[in-house]
């Protein structure tokens, strides 16, 4: 049990969010630092594409982190800080872009795709159900009926065929 706990702890530890923030960057005011961390997670590092500046060790990410903190210390709101970065690096720096005409596919593309797939599945399922429902109730033709009767006759005139588990 203790081994298991240790193993779980070890597995979980690397998953702990390890930012790239270095000690000399951290602000003295914990509330401001918290806000800085939250903003940093929403800003994309412009040279590493899929990392936030909070995660990235790139020098430019460090510069941007320091700038975020500088703006916060000067009394900017969170939105003002993000706008400041967007003004310089474009909409690209946001991990969650604002909803505009150009960003509509970004926001609604994936749900639309899921919707299409779900609709397709429902349609195929319906079609299949329809087919099996029709086939299930189709009455036997005269020839089939005759053949079935002949088989039943051969097995012993309507007597229930013995199954293997029954005593002889």
């Amino acid at each position, binding site marked *: 049990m203790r081994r298991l706990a240790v193993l779980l702890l070890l597995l979980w530890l690397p998953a702990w969010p390890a930012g790239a923030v270095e000690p000399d960057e951290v602000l003295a005011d914990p509330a401001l630092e918290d806000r800085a961390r939250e903003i940093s997670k929403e800003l994309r590092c412009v040279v590493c594409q899929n990392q936030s500046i909070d995660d990235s060790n790139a020098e430019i990410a460090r*510069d941007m982190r320091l700038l975020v903190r500088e703006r916060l210390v000067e009394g900017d709101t969170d939105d003002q800080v993000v706008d400041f970065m967007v003004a310089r690096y474009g909409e690209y720096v946001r991990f969650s872009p604002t909803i505009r005409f150009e960003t509509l596919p970004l926001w609604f593309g994936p749900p639309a795709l899921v919707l299409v797939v779900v609709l397709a599945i429902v349609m195929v399922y319906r*079609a299949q159900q329809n087919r099996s429902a029709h086939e299930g109730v189709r009455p036997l033709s005269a020839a089939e009926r005759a053949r079935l009767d002949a088989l039943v006759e051969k097995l012993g005139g309507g007597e229930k065929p013995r199954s293997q588990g029954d005593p002889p």
Partner: protein
Amino acid sequence: MRRWLFFAPVGLFVVLGGVFLSQLLLGRDPSHIPSALVDRPVPEFVLPGVEGRDGPAGFATADLQGSLSIVNVFASWCVPCLAEHPLISGLSEDGYRVFGINHRDKDAEAAAWLRRHGDPYTGVGADRDARISVEWGVTGVPETFIVDAAGVIRYKHVGPLTPQLLEDEFMPRIRALGG
């Protein structure tokens, strides 16, 4: 209805294939980020000069007004900057005003680099902590901007200049701006 479903995967494949093919053939670099600063005035800044460099001191927003200028972000530690340096020098020899933002560099090393490879710059600003580079939306060195006479950024190129780029992208724009 059934027939339509039968051809749906083929249709999907053709559409996806078309998207991928067009992306492949257009040769667009996915790491290219459109600049937010093109057609916007240059940011407000004052850069001190590089210590040890001969010639005038740094430059500021006001210096970029009045006539067309080219702003080149460079560093002595940046190899592509050295590769494009003859082209930057050529622009200066052709009579264009070229300003340099010395990005995250040591003054002594930048001054030595300029002495060794030639100093085509009208003014060089020492951006030691890259603070002003961020104002310019710079993501790395080298980067080169065309700023018109009104102090508005008209073009930005990320990466080193090449003779072909200079001829195809830079010179037509510079001529159009009456430089």
